[in-house]
């Protein structure tokens, strides 16, 4: 072989190429019907391009036809893991528009159930996060503890997941007589079980290796992308609506806004675990001090909001949910916009996952805690 031939031979050796992989819409770790188009170089991610809309149900369009009472139950179907908080957002927005004075009892009940919802959502997230990283046992433990909360919901609200417990002006029924006892029992139980979560996953050397310095999101990016909730706070973005714009009974309870500055998967994980402790603290402060009174303020059968625009933000388990209602003084709103936390959080995924491996993308996604119906609405 001559030298020339050798050179041409070397040149014809195929170079490494980037290739595409479709992650989803059916994939175990996208938690629903999310499709990610990954551009990969070997196992290194070059680009993540989310394709949404597989479960788009046009909730905003449906709201334009429904009465204000009916809108509430649609929000159950957005972020189904923090359904009570979604309902609360709509109700607060409507009450705000009507200038309705809601009883203190309602505020406290709403806050307790919101925090229980947050706990149950985080428990589910913890289980699923472990499963995404390969520790399937955590999934069952997370669900085991969540079951007790859903039992509380079932007894008081009448359903386990899509509870629709709020109505504009208050809550649908008064709390069940067993509610306080069950909740207290649960808190004592879960205070014992939560350290187990740490033993099983948080301290585990494999887990920390898998999550530390993975999926980094800087504070500037978090604000710019609008990444809120525990994910945003893990990057140092103080975005807890409960602290910044207190609603319901959050102004009278003491709790810490969990802020980490690392911005990696482990910080997001820790933020959620710590948030569970804070939620329990909030519930303990309120559960014995539920004021007596009505469970619902008097409202008209047909609610008409005065002309104008109303914006209400609440803190769901995933971040800041905004409800923007534009009313033209009819029985259904003119335009409703739900600023869902998942939608904004997802948009930062590309920045976070670039340069990491496929396995890291899974970890990043699960620490973002995506709920697909929340993103697609």
């Amino acid at each position, binding site marked *: 072989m001559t030298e020339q031939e050798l050179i041409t031979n070397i040149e014809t050796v195929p170079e490494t190429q980037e*290739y595409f992989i479709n992650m989803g819409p059916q994939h175990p770790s996208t938690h629903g019907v999310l499709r990610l188009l990954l551009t990969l170089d070997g*196992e290194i991610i070059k680009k993540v391009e989310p394709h949404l809309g597989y479960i788009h149900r046009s909730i905003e369009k449906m709201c334009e036809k429904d009465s204000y009472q009916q809108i509430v139950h649609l929000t159950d179907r957005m972020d189904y893991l923090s359904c009570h908080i979604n309902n609360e957002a709509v109700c607060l927005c409507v009450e705000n528009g009507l200038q309705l004075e809601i009883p203190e009892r309602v505020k406290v009940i709403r806050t307790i159930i919101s925090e229980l919802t947050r706990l149950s959502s985080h428990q589910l997230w913890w289980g699923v996060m472990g499963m995404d990283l390969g*520790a399937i046992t955590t999934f069952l433990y997370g669900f085991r503890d969540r079951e007790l909360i859903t039992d509380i919901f079932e007894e008081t609200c009448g359903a386990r997941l899509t509870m629709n417990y709020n109505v504009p002006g208050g809550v649908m029924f008064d709390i069940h007589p067993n509610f306080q006892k069950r909740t207290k029992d649960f808190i004592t139980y879960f205070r014992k079980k939560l350290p187990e979560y740490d033993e*099983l996953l948080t301290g*585990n050397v494999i887990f920390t290796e*898998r999550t530390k310095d993975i999926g980094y999101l800087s504070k500037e990016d978090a604000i710019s992308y609008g990444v809120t909730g525990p994910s945003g706070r893990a990057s140092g973005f103080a975005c807890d609506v409960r602290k910044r714009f207190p609603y319901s009974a959050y102004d009278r309870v003491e709790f810490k806004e969990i802020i980490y500055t690392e911005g990696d998967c482990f910080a997001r994980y820790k933020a959620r675990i710590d948030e569970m402790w804070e939620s329990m603290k909030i519930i303990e402060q309120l559960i014995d001090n539920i004021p007596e009174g009505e469970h619902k303020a008097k409202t008209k059968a047909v609610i008409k909001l005065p002309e104008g625009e109303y914006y209400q933000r609440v803190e769901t388990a995933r971040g800041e949910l905004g409800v923007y209602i534009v009313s033209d003084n009819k029985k259904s709103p003119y335009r409703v916009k739900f600023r869902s936390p998942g939608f904004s959080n997802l948009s930062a995924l590309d920045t976070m996952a670039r340069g990491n491996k*496929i*396995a890291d993308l*899974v970890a990043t996604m699960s620490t973002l805690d995506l709920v697909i119906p929340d993103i697609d609405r």
Partner: protein
Amino acid sequence: MNFNIYDFTEFVNSIKLWLNSVLPPAAADIAGFVIIGICFLTFIVILGLSLVYIERKVCAFFQQRLGPMRVGFWGTAQTIADIIKLVFKEPLISKGSDKFLFNLAAFIVIIAPFMAIAAIPFAKGLHVLDFDIGLFFITAISSIGVTGILLAGWSSNNKYSLIGAMRSGAQIVSYELSVILSLLTIIVLTGSLQLSVIVESQRDGWWIFKGNIPAIIAFFIFIIASTAESNRGPFDMAEAESELTAGFHTEYSGIKFAFFFLAEYINLFIIAAVGATVFFGGWMPLHIGNFEFFNNVMDFIPPIIWFFGKIAAIIFLIMWFKWTFPRLRIDQLLTLEWKYLLPINLINLLLMALVALSGWHL
């Protein structure tokens, strides 16, 4: 015919003699092969089914569940029902896949453990292939399985499968080293690769007790490395359900999927068997020095029960790992091997040589 549960030598010999007496020598040999083959086929199928059942139950109890309960008493017939389902399922072959290699891969994967299992001593005299390189043979043969995994990933025409296969290749090449080095640590003491000799050398105590600290370290490295070699969690990068859907066997269905499934469990058995033979004395009962009475009581338990008991214990340990730990990432997996296990292993081997030379072992 003289059947003795403590010593199968006479029993096996009498079958041989009987075969030779009724058949010409060549035919007798062939008949012997066929009988052994059938025995092993039955054994492997039963083994696979029961291991799947055990895994499901153990996993369920770790997770505070009950596991399969519907089919048969406590769900004992569940795996049989599963196999029936798998047999009747349509064997799909995806478009654009290399059909020949695709089909071949499933067989390579299952053949490797089939061959390896032949060299394992089940009890005294119950041993098909007892040659002087027995341990070497098992480690060599069982790593053929990775060829099947690579072929499966390559021929599936699926990028997930391909990534899984490549991961598996990298993983097995690395961990093969640790498995062999940790076994060598004990070979330093036995001085032989023949499995029957290794078992016999532990008549007065198992190597894990006799071999001082290096033997214990070697055992743990062996467990870790062989778990990785068999692609089980926390080292199941090749399947990595949450990342690669099902890795190299994404495209397989029906009975060919069952082959992959079965191979995984037989590999598990072989690992546990090798571990039990080398570190825990194989079928040898637990003997402690001069405690005559204790030793006699232990001798009363048949060797085959000892052997399977030890295997069960090791399998339980491996399952415990799988159902507790998160999965490693591929680069961490290689880091673990090359930065931790291999250096420790080499030093451990040196230590063991020192122990053997100075006679510190029992």
